[in-house]
């Protein structure tokens, strides 16, 4: 890891959902895993998240949603990234996501969905293998 350029990750809370525990824990955890992590804080519009991802030149965007509004919010983020030719950014999703919605999120281009009980190490190794091939 250390000789590579540090992987940059944006952890974002789209929409009005105020549940912040997971997003904060993942942000701290990935930071300790050696990534460069930027956390947006609450209540970010999809547009703001897309422009932050591009401005900060991140490799990964992690979206945390527990309000049930994930489908429409994530679709907007994915569309936004696409329209800025930034769809090489790996998008991860965390929160409370009903199993029935997983295929729809994957179809939108979400790389992986991590729900409750996930180990931070597992998220970290997913990111590494995705960006460095292991």
């Amino acid at each position, binding site marked *: 890891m250390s000789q590579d350029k540090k992987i940059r990750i944006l952890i974002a809370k789209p929409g009005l959902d105020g549940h912040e*525990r997971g997003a904060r*824990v993942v942000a701290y955890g990935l930071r300790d895993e050696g990534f460069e992590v930027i956390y947006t804080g609450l*209540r970010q519009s999809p547009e703001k998240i897309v422009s932050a991802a591009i401005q900060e030149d991140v490799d990964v965007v992690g979206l945390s949603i527990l309000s049930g509004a994930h489908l429409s919010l994530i679709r907007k983020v994915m569309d936004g990234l696409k329209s800025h030719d930034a769809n090489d950014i790996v998008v991860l999703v965390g929160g409370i996501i009903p199993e029935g919605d997983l295929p729809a999120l994957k179809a939108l281009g979400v790389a992986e969905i991590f729900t409750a009980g996930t180990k931070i190490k597992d998220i970290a190794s997913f990111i590494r293998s995705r960006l460095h091939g292991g």
Partner: protein
Amino acid sequence: MGAELARTPGIEVKSRGMYMDEEKKKIKKAARKWEKEVLLPRVKRFNLKETPTRFYTPLEVADPNFLEKVGFPGQYPFTAGNNPFDFWRAYAVDAAKMGYRPDWGGAGQVGKYGGFGTPADYRDYLKRMHSMGRRGGPNIAFDLVTQCGYDSDSTYAEGEVGRVGVAVDSFRDFQIIYEAYTGDLDIDKVPSNYTINAPAAVIIAMYATLAKKRSIPLNKLRGTPQNDILKEFIARGTHIYPPRPSMRLFRDTCVFCTRYMPALNINSIGGYHIREAGATRIQDLAFSLANGIAYIQAGLEGGLSIDEFAPKFTFNAFGGSMEIYNEIALQRAARRMWARLLKERFGAKDERSMMIRQPITAHIGCSSTTLQRPLNNLARAVVGGIAAGMSGGIPGAFPPFDEPLGLGHSLEAVQLQFDATRIMIYEAKVTDVNDPWAGSYFMESLTDATEEEALKEMDKIEKMGGAVAAIENGYMPKAVARSAYERQKKIENQEEFVVGVNCYTGTNEIEVSINRVLEDTYDPELMRTAEERQKGNLEQLKRERDSKAVLASLKSLNAQAKVEETNLMPAICECVESDATLQEICDVLREVFGEAQPVKL
């Protein structure tokens, strides 16, 4: 002190005066002998660094002053409970004989928490519930759009309208919901509860305006608005304005309620949300009480005297965990700390000012439940129920075991929850004794330690300038985030064990599966179409209302908001009555107050 204690019948006095010193010396000597001859050899035999268990003696209780530190149930400092017995305990036998179900409450009581869709959707649902005999007062969940001070046509609203609660954009919407509450369920007969914080002033104004329209005197209105904005900055996240102007709005509601709606509770202070967001037990206790102090100060700054308004403060709940002893100690310590604070620091004379009034006491907290082998959550909830029953509360087996499986609880899970509570009350007789841990060397020392640690944390906050300052400088939100992460690390490193999650997950274990039939609480078709329909309702309102009157009321609010001393409630009532929307009102205040900025890590 010793002489006083000796005169009190029925109290077992462990130690007093000269006798105490003699006795303590003896115990100390015996303790050393026990450690050397019994404990240490055993520790050595098992090759341990230290003993995995502890034993408590009178030596651990620094100051065993019963009357000052424990006292009687229903008397200062309320360590042993707010009452000798609660109202539900008085009727427990009747309830069992008549088969009373606590899920909806009877007329005159708080109804079930809920809300969805458009106001008309929710009204129709409530009417249906009333026809089934579920006749408690409105206990309204608002959607996130309303909670964050937006209207259903805002760009922020997309995908959120009517989802986690009912959408309320205007007084018209509020009135539609209350069409389900007339006659013997009118607002002078049933209480109204509102889970609303940042726009609490607007919702309280709607309640007052509704009473005016129905010619019901304001002093007849009962209920509880959550109105606890500070914990939103620390944990729950539905804030709008920065902390200081938010506290001005609290002051204004506090003064308005005290003067005109004296039967209404002023707030419902929550440590629950803070703990669920990751706070430790001590942070939960210290931050909640620090927030409470800030609210008291706001009331005093508004010109009220302490006993005028403090009795109308309530607490939602502190957080919970699986650590049963610690949770009982927290409840005992919290009651004593609040009582002392109110009496000694704020000079309260009325004992009702000194009590932590909360609907439940200890519990495990939803974050103690696991997605893995979910029936285990019933065992967990029973532990919380025992802690509650032993700390002055109803032994609620909260939450239902299927809590982590997604929104809604199955009928089976709710049945088992009720039955577990009943088994604790009627079969185990958990609630037949007040504060059964009083006088325990262990529990008294744990209560003292909890109090001491929380006071230390509160001192730290006090030195920063109080809760508001400790939010502005990011201390409280960051401390909670940090604690959440520390706990996560402990679980990942197996320093703490969660059964079925990070231990006992091998191939010998059976993945106990359950059939969970979840009925839709609310009509999915209505949920799906709520946003479009509510946007239509809003458009119609904007077309039909007297826009001149709206503009005039908003302009007046703007002018008054700029004067810090002015109580904004009358102006907000005018806006509400003129059919200004919730967002229009909040936007005026956003313009004057600014908006809260997200906390970075």
